[in-house]
C-alpha cells in the first residue's frame, strides 16, 4: 500500500495535475485573502475561506478524474490486481495520495492567519477550525470524485460527472428551498428516492427479491407515516436535503464560527462511505 501511495503521490507531480491544483487553490485563496482581509481590513480569515467552497467544484474533478479511470483505460489495473495487495489497500492508497496533494495548499493556507497576525488581532481558533472544515469538505468531495472515477474508463466522463455531482451538492440547499413543502409532495419525493435506492440495491446485489422487499418495507413505513401523522412529512424532504448538503455544513464553521462535531462526523462518514463504494465498484468488476 505504501508503494502505491508513493507512486500515486509522485504521479501528481510528474504530470501537471498536482501543480495545477495547488497553484489554482493558492491563487484563488490569495485573491480572497487580499480582498477581504488585507484590502477590506476584516480580521476573520474564515470569511475568505467561505468564498472558496466553489473553487472545489473545479479543483476536485481535476484531482480525481484519472485516479481509477485511467488505470482501467490503460489496463494497468491488471498489474495492481496481480500484486499482493487488496482492493481496499489499493483504493485507500489512491485516496490518501489525493488527500495529501490537497493538504499541501491547505498547509500553505494555514500560514495566512499567522501573516495576518502581524497586522492586528486574528481569532486563530475560528480560522483554523474553518480551515479544518474546508479540508474535510474537500476530503468528502474527493471521495465522491474517486467513486465516480471508478465507474468509467473515460477520464473526461469522470471529470464531467464529478463536476456535476459537486455542482448538485453545492446547489442542494438552494434546491431544498424550491421543493414544495406540502406533505403530499414530500411523500412523492420520498417514494421516488425509495425507488432509486431499491434500484441501486438491485444493481449491487442482483437480487430482485431483496430489492423489492426493502423497497416495500420502506414504502409501507412511509405510507404509514403519511396516513397516521401527515404533519410530520410537511417540509421534511427539503429539511433532509438541507441536512445532507455538504456545502451548507461548511457555513457552520465559517459564519457561525462553530467547531461542529456533527459536521465533522458527517464529512468523515460521507468520505468513508464513498471510499467503501469505490472498493465495491472496483471489486465488482473482477466478478463481471
Amino acid at each position, binding site marked *: 500500500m505504501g508503494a502505491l501511495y*508513493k507512486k500515486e503521490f509522485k504521479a501528481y507531480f510528474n504530470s501537471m495535475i498536482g501543480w495545477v491544483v495547488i497553484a489554482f487553490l493558492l491563487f484563488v485563496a490569495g485573491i480572497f485573502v487580499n480582498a477581504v482581509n488585507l484590502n477590506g481590513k476584516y480580521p476573520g480569515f474564515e470569511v475568505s475561506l467561505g468564498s472558496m467552497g466553489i473553487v472545489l467544484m473545479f479543483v476536485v474533478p481535476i484531482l480525481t478524474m484519472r485516479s481509477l479511470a485511467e488505470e482501467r483505460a*490503460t*489496463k494497468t489495473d*491488471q*498489474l495492481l490486481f496481480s*500484486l499482493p495487495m487488496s482492493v481496499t489497500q489499493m483504493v485507500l492508497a489512491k485516496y490518501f495520495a489525493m488527500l495529501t496533494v490537497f493538504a499541501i495548499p491547505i498547509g500553505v493556507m494555514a500560514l495566512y492567519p499567522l501573516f495576518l497576525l502581524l497586522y492586528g488581532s486574528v481569532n486563530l481558533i475560528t480560522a483554523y477550525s474553518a480551515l479544518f472544515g474546508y479540508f474535510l469538505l474537500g476530503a468528502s468531495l474527493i471521495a465522491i470524485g474517486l467513486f465516480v472515477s471508478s465507474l468509467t474508463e473515460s477520464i473526461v466522463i469522470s471529470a464531467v460527472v464529478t463536476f456535476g455531482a459537486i455542482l448538485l451538492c453545492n446547489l442542494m440547499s438552494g434546491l431544498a428551498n424550491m421543493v414544495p413543502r406540502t406533505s403530499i409532495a414530500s411523500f412523492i419525493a420520498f417514494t421516488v428516492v425509495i425507488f432509486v435506492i431499491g434500484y441501486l440495491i438491485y444493481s449491487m446485489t442482483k437480487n430482485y427479491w431483496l430489492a423489492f422487499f426493502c423497497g416495500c418495507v420502506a414504502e409501507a413505513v412511509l405510507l404509514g407515516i403519511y396516513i397516521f401523522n401527515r404533519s410530520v412529512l410537511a417540509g421534511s424532504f427539503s429539511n433532509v436535503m438541507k441536512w445532507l448538503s455538504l456545502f451548507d455544513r461548511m457555513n457552520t464553521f465559517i459564519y457561525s464560527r462553530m467547531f461542529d462535531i456533527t459536521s465533522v462526523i458527517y464529512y468523515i462518514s460521507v468520505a468513508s462511505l464513498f471510499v467503501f463504494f469505490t472498493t465495491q465498484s472496483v471489486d465488482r468488476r473482477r*466478478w*463481471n
Partner: protein
Amino acid sequence: MIQVRNLTKKYGQNTVVKGLTFTIEKGRIYGFLGPNGAGKTTTLNMLTGCLAPTESEIIINGHDIFEEPEEAKRAIGYLPEQPPLYLDMTPYEYLCFVAEAKGVERGEIDDAVRKVMEETHIIDMGGRLIRNLSKGYRQRVGIAQAMLGNPDLIILDEPTVGLDPKQIIEIRDLISKLGENHTVLLSSHILAEVSAICDYVMIISKGRLVAADTLENIRRSQVKENSVSITVRAPQAKVEELLDKIDGIVKFDMTAVPGVDEVWDVVIDVDEGIDIRERLFTEFASAGLPLRKLSSAEPSLEEVFLKLTSEDEAAGEHERDMAFEEDADTETDKTAEAPAYANYEEEGGDEEGEDDYYVPMFSKTDSDENDDEEGDDE
C-alpha cells in the same frame, strides 16, 4: 505448484471457460495454446487474481488464491496481454514501484531492479520515459516487472504479439532463459513460438482443455495414417504405373510442379505400420527416374492444432444441445431444432462461422469472445 480444479467462468448465460482442470509442475515451460477467443486470457486473468472465477479452486504453492490472495500472488509474476505500464514513469521508477509493492526489502530494491533490467537488456533505457520506448522495449519492461520479487511462476500472455521478427526472437530467447530458473506459463496462438520454446503444451478450445502433454506426444497421438511425399521427374503414366505396383498404398495425389516439364509432387497415403520409403527409392531408381525429394509427411503441429480445436468445436456444439434439452421448459423451440444441427456439425466440417448461422443465440457470444481478443490478430 499450481493446482487448478474445475475452473469455470460465466458471463451471464455465456460460459467462456468450462471446467478446466490442470496442474503445473515446477521447472518447466508451459505453452498455453488456443485460437482467438478460446478463453486463454480469461483463464490467465483468473489464475493471477485479476478476475474472479464463477467456480473453481486455484491453489498456488499451497495457498488458495481467494482465501490467501497475498501469499498466492507473491508466487506469481504476470505480464498481461497489454503490458501494464505507467507511461509517465521511467522503467527504473516503474520497476522500483513494482518491487516495493511486491514486498522486496527496501535495501535490496535497487539491486533487484538492476538485476532484472540487465537480464531483459533494458539497462540503457532506464532513464527514458516509458512513453518514448518502442513496443519491444515496453514488452521487456513488462517482463522485467513480472520477474521482480523472484516469483516461482511467471505467466506471460502473448508476449510477442505486435513485435517485429528480430524482437520476437529476442523475447523468445529471453523466455527460454527465464525457464532455467522459473516455471513459465506462456499463452500464445502462434504455434511456431510454442514449439520453439515450450516443454509442455496445453491446448484449449472454446474454454475446454483438449490436450495437455509434451509436444511430441501430442503430435504422435494425432498421427493416424502414414503418408509419404515425393517429387519425381517422369511422365505421369510412368509414375502411376510404378506406384500401382507397390503394396500398401491406399491412394495418391499428383500435382504438377509449375514451370517445369514432367515434374510431379506426389502425396501417397499408406496403410498404417508400413514404411514404403526404401521401396519407393529402389523402384524409381531401377526405372531410371530420378527422385528429387522423398520425405515422410508427418502432420505438422498446425494440423494437429486445427484438428484438436475443430474436433472440440463439434463436441462443444453437441454439449450445448444437451444443455438445451435440460432447460427444455424454457427453450422448447430450440430443443426441437437442436439434434438436426448437431448432426450436421458432426458430419459436415467445422469451419468457424457456422455456429453463427445455425445457432443464432450464440452468434453474439462468439463475436464477443473474438472482440475480447482482437489484438491477437496483429
